[in-house]
């Protein structure tokens, strides 16, 4: 087995054994989204207006919450030292871990999103673009988040610091992610390809940046 599949298989198996973990991510996504009608009031037209933004923002926060610990456990129990010493290319290991993370949290989130869109009265034209935008945007979110998670290894209060570091970097994804949905609703289509472009850019840069940060953390 290649390094990628070995690490991916292990992380998926761990996630499966602890399936509560990815369920809680989805639960957070659901509950945080549902908070908005309580905070803003139940008017359908306002909720519909803000729905794409709210879904995207909560998806970003949910991803962030779960990314927080993507390397922490490995760091604290010594696995990270051993992975670095395995001689396997570290960017590949990072990519495998990010892939596992995306499969166990990003994908369920995408599947879940139409349900939440219903509660926020998103117009029907928005559903497919919503899922498409999440499908193309969440890989970038996971990749950029992994760099942040690697950077905050060994700090106290990793989660909050992580948000400070990566949320500003998520803004382009957020802008185009919501634009795709709103474009479909207002009838002025916006191409989702730019999200794919971001993903490719992140794919070429983030594994390296994250592994530099990981090596640094193990020093």
């Amino acid at each position, binding site marked *: 087995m290649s390094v990628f599949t070995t690490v991916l298989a292990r992380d998926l198996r761990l996630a499966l054994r602890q399936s509560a973990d990815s369920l809680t991510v989805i639960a957070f996504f659901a509950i945080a989204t549902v908070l908005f009608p309580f905070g803003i009031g139940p008017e359908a037209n306002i909720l519909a207006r803000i729905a794409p933004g709210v879904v995207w923002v909560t998806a970003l926060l949910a991803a962030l919450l779960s990314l927080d610990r993507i390397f922490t456990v490995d760091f604290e129990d010594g696995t990270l030292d051993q992975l670095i010493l395995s001689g396997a290319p570290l960017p590949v290991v990072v990519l495998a871990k990010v892939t596992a993370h995306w499969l166990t949290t990003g994908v369920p989130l995408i599947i879940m999103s139409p349900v939440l869109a219903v509660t926020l009265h998103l117009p029907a034209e928005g559903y497919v673009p919503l899922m498409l935008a999440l499908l193309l945007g969440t890989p970038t979110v996971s990749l950029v988040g992994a*760099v942040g998670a690697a*950077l*905050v290894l*060994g*700090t*106290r*209060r990793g989660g909050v*610091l992580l948000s*400070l*570091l990566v*949320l*500003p*970097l998520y*803004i*382009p994804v957020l*802008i*185009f992610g919501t*634009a795709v949905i709103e474009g479909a609703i207002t009838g002025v289509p916006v191409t989702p390809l730019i999200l794919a472009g*971001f993903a490719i850019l992140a794919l070429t*840069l983030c594994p390296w*940046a994250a592994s*530099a*940060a990981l090596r*640094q*953390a193990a*020093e």
Partner: protein
Amino acid sequence: MHRFANPTQFMRIANAIFPWVAGLAVILFVIGLPIALVTSPPDYQQGETVRIMYIHVPSAWLALMVYGTMAGGSAAFLIWRHPIANLTAKAAAPMGAVFTGLALVTGMLWGQPMWGTFWVWDARLTSFLILFFLYLGYLALGDAFEDSERGDKAAAILCLVGSINIPIIHFSVTWWNTLHQPSIMKLGGDGVKSSVDGSILLPLFVMLGAFTMYFFAVLILRLRSELLAAKIRNARLSQAAVGDALGQAAE
């Protein structure tokens, strides 16, 4: 370049230019402030508020320049492991955050009389706000480790990642904003640009120079301070090491 890797040598050069830079900063402020505040005429469109520009624009300019300095320093630190490059980035960061904050605050104080609101989600304002967050993130990360050396490298990586993202953010925000741009923002900088003439350019450039010289002067002082802090850390910790060794030998 490698000549500067040696802190002593680098500081010798820095200390040599310090009086010039500091002197120039003082002179430019002494010339620039009276022009900006008294002698320059009010703008025909913006009236007296144009005087805010003479500090707003230099602050904004420096905020960007400092980030460039930090990105350069971080790259040099990560690639060549130059300690001075790292210290430069570290010393510059709080100043960059302050300049960004000042550009934001002066911009907001300008926005109220001009646009009737402190804040609009205009592209340039918005991308500046994000720049401010990037600065805060850098400072917070550098500060978050028990071991200061670890914070240095992590912050350097973050700085580089951020510098790749700044153009992306800028482009996205511009695009986002032009899509549904409220009308009040059309008043922005362009209105001024058309009326730019010597009477405005002169104080602007003098103040730009003054701010830049101020930055370099204070940067040198902060570098000195950072170097001393490193020495003190070494000294304190090594004293303890020696105590440890001696104590053990005595047993």
